[in-house]
C-alpha cells in the first residue's frame, strides 16, 4: 500500500487563494501561464512518447566517469565544494568557459569578463532584471525560445517579434521595425536572438545577416543578447562565426551553457558581456542566489581537466545527427503533403508547420489522448497568439525507435484532422500518400506567419544543403 502526500496535521487549511490576490505584485498578473501547462503535465505520463522536451540525452554520460569526477571533487575540493563561492564563479570554471568559447571561434576571452550563472536561463532573467522597466521593448525572433517568454512577461516587457525564414531573423524587417519604434520614441533595450540552430525553429542566421545585425547594433547602439546553447552541436555544414566574435564585445552580450554539451542537471551557464553590463548583472545575481553551486562548478572543472569534453561532444553530436536524420525521414514518411518543416543543421529542434486550420494546442489534446504522443504547440513561442498551426519537435531526448513511432503517431492525428477538414469544407479528400521528401531547404516561407495564405506546393527536392 502506498500513501502519498498525506497532509500534516495542524497545518492550516489553505483558504481561498483569492484572498491573497490583492497582495500579488502587478507583474504576476501578466505572468504567462496557459492551458498548455495542464496539457504538458500529461506528457510526463510513462506511456507518452514526448517529443516536447528540450532535453539533451544524459543517458550516454558514463556513470563511471560521473563517479570518478565526484570522487575527485570530494577528495580534492570537499570543503570548497560545500562552501559558498564567488558570485562571478570559480576561476577554474571561467577558464573552462574560455576554452569552450575558443572552440566556437572566440579565442582570447578574458576569464574576468565571464559571469558564471545558474544555467543559461539565469542570463535571460538577469538581462531583464538589469535592463527592463515595465513597458520597455525587447526585440525577439518569431517564433522565440518558449522558455524566454515567461521571463520577458515577468518583467512586463513589451516584446516585439521579428519573423524568420530559412536564414534566420529577417534583418530587413528588424530594421524597418526599429525605424518604426524610433518614430514612436521607443528604443529597444535589447535584441534577443538564438542565431544558431534556433530554438524552436532549428534555423541558423546567415552570415550576411549576422554582419548586418551586428552593424545595426553598432549604428544604433543597441544591445544584442546572443543565446548560443547549441552552437557546438553541428551535424552538417560549416560553422558560422558567432555574433560576439563579429562584434568583438561592444554590443553583444553572449550567453553560453554547459547544459547541452555536458549536463543541464549541473545548472551551469555563463555570460560574457561588456564590463558595465556585466557588473550590473553581477549585482542582480547577488540578490538572486549569491553564487551558482560551487559543487557542480567543481564538477565542471574536474570534467574539463580530464580532457574528455571534446570526445563526449563528438559522441553526442553523432547520436543527435542520427536522431535528426531519423526524425526528418519519419516526417517525410508520415506527415501529409500539406505540412512543412525545417531542416536544422544542428541543435535539438525541428519546427513543423501544419495547415492554418489546424490548431496545434487542440491537436496536442488529441495526440495525447488518442496516441499518447506529445510536442510543444507553436503558440508557446509567441507572445501574441500566433504560431497556432506550428509545433516544435525535439529529437535529442528520445531514441530513434521512439522518434520514428512518435512521428508516426503525430502523422496519424494530423492526417485525421486534414481529412476531417476536407470533409467539412467539401474539399478534396485527404492525400493518403505521405509527403514528399523535405521541401525546398531554403525554407523561405516555412516560418511564415500563420495568418498568411499557404504557398503553392513546391517541387520535390532531396538536397539537404542550405
Amino acid at each position: 500500500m502506498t500513501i502519498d502526500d498525506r497532509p500534516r496535521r495542524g497545518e492550516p487549511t489553505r483558504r481561498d487563494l483569492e484572498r491573497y490576490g490583492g497582495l500579488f505584485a502587478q507583474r504576476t498578473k501578466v505572468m504567462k501561464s496557459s492551458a498548455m501547462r495542464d496539457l504538458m503535465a500529461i506528457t510526463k505520463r510513462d506511456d507518452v512518447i514526448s517529443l516536447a522536451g528540450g532535453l539533451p540525452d544524459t543517458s550516454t554520460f558514463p556513470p563511471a566517469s560521473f563517479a570518478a569526477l565526484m570522487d575527485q571533487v570530494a577528495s580534492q575540493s570537499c570543503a570548497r565544494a560545500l562552501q559558498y563561492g564567488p558570485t562571478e564563479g570559480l576561476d577554474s570554471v571561467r577558464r573552462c568557459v574560455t576554452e569552450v568559447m575558443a572552440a566556437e571561434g572566440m579565442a582570447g576571452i578574458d576569464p574576468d569578463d565571464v559571469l558564471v550563472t545558474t544555467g543559461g536561463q539565469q542570463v535571460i532573467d538577469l538581462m531583464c532584471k538589469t535592463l527592463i522597466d515595465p513597458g520597455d521593448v525587447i526585440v525577439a525572433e518569431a517564433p522565440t525560445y518558449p522558455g524566454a517568454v515567461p521571463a520577458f512577461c515577468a518583467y512586463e516587457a513589451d516584446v516585439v517579434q521579428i519573423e524568420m525564414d530559412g536564414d534566420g531573423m529577417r534583418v530587413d524587417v528588424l530594421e524597418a521595425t526599429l525605424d518604426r519604434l524610433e518614430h514612436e520614441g521607443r528604443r529597444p533595450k535589447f535584441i534577443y536572438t538564438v542565431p544558431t540552430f534556433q530554438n524552436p525553429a532549428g534555423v541558423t542566421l546567415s552570415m550576411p545577416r549576422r554582419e548586418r545585425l551586428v552593424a545595426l547594433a553598432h549604428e544604433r547602439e543597441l544591445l544584442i543578447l546572443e543565446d548560443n546553447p547549441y552552437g557546438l552541436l553541428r551535424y552538417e555544414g560549416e560553422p558560422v562565426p558567432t555574433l560576439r566574435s563579429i562584434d568583438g564585445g561592444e554590443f553583444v552580450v553572449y550567453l553560453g551553457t554547459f547544459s547541452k554539451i555536458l549536463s543541464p542537471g549541473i545548472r551551469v551557464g555563463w555570460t560574457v558581456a561588456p564590463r558595465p553590463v556585466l557588473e550590473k548583472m553581477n549585482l542582480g545575481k547577488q540578490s538572486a542566489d549569491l553564487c551558482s553551486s560551487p559543487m557542480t562548478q567543481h564538477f565542471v572543472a574536474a570534467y574539463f581537466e580530464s580532457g574528455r569534453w571534446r570526445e563526449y561532444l563528438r559522441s553526442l553530436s553523432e547520436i543527435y545527427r542520427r536522431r535528426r536524420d531519423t526524425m526528418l525521414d519519419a516526417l517525410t514518411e508520415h506527415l501529409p503533403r500539406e505540412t512543412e518543416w525545417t531542416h536544422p543543421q544542428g541543435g535539438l529542434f525541428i519546427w513543423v508547420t501544419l495547415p492554418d486550420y489546424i490548431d496545434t494546442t487542440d491537436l496536442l489534446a488529441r495526440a495525447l489522448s488518442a496516441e499518447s504522443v506529445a510536442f510543444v504547440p507553436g503558440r508557446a513561442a509567441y507572445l501574441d497568439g500566433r504560431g497556432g498551426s506550428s509545433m516544435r519537435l525535439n529529437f535529442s531526448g528520445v531514441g530513434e525507435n521512439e522518434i520514428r513511432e512518435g512521428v508516426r503517431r503525430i502523422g496519424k492525428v494530423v492526417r485525421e484532422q486534414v481529412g476531417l477538414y476536407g470533409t467539412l469544407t467539401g474539399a478534396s479528400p485527404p492525400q493518403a500518400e505521405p509527403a514528399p521528401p523535405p521541401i525546398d531547404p531554403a525554407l523561405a516561407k516555412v516560418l511564415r506567419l500563420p495568418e498568411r495564405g499557404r504557398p503553392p506546393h513546391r517541387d520535390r527536392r532531396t538536397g539537404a544543403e542550405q
Partner: protein
Amino acid sequence: MTRVAVLKGGRSLERGVSLRSGARVANALAHLGHDVASIDVGGDLVARLRDVAAHVAFVALHGPFGEDGTVQELLEVVGMPYTASGVSACIRCSDKVLAKHAMRDAGIPTPDFFAFNETAFRELGAAGALPEMEQRLAFPIVVKPASQGSALGIKFARTAADVPTALVAAFSYGDKVLLERYVAGRDLAVSVLEGDAGPIALPVVEAVPRDREFYDFEARYEIGRTDFLCPAELAGGVAQRAQGLAVEAYRLLGCYGFARIDLMLDETGALYVLEANVIPGLTDTSLLPQAAEAAGISFEDVVARLVDLAIARARPGRADAGAPA
C-alpha cells in the same frame, strides 16, 4: 476514524486541475481527523482500491473517466462507497448533449443546439447541413466538445468560414461535438449542495473575465485573470430564479452530493442552463468552494458533508439517491 481514499489525477486533460482539487480535499480530510490515502488514478486503480481498503472514496477527478461514470462504476463493483453523483447521473451530465436533451424535454431553458459525431460528417455528409444549422443558431456560434468539463476546445465561430476550423478543434477532444447558440450576457454558476432536506442552491457566482472576449480555459484556473463576484450582483429575483433552475436541473439529472450548474443570463433577463458539472473544481480558485464560503460553509464542511452522504447512500435499505428523478 474513517479511512478515505482520495482519487485524483488520472489520464484526463484536466489532470492538473484534479491534482490540485485532490490535494486540497486530502488536506481538509486530514484536518477532519480522517485517515487519508491519496491515489493518482492509473492502470492499477482497482488493485490500489483493494490495497487501501478505505471506508469511502472521495472522487476528486475531473473530465473523462472520473466524471463520466467509469470510475463510479468501478467503485460500485469493488463495493466502496464514494462521494457525489452515481453512475447514471455522471453519464448524463458528462455528455452535454444528453444533459441538454433531458433539460429541453423537461422544459428547462438551454440554448438551442445541434450535436453530431465525427461519423456523421465523414459518412453521412452532415457538413451539407451546416448552412441550415448556422441559419437557425445565428452567428456567433459556440462549438464545443460534448464531453469536456473544462473550457478546453471551446471555440466561437463568428462566420461560416470559422465553423470547419472550430469543428476540427472541438473534435480533438472527443467524438461528439455540440454547436450551440451563443448567449451574450453574464456568466453565472450556481453550486448545489445536498442538505438534510434535499439539495440547496448556494449563492450565485458571476465570472467576469478581465481582458478576454470570452471566458477561456486559462482564465478559469489562473488567479487574477478573472474576477469572481460572489454573491453576484443581480437585479430583483434573478438570483432566486437562477438558484431555482439550478436545483431543478440538479434533480432532473439525478445528481447527488453536490454539483455546479453553469448558466447564462441574457440582456432580456432570460436564464439558460449550459451544463451541470458533477464533480466541480475544488481548487483554490474554484467556484463551488467560493460559493460555499459565501454561504458560511467552510471547505471542510463541504468535504465532511460529501463523505457523510457517500456513507449514507451505501447504507443497506437506503434508496439510491443518485437515481434520476
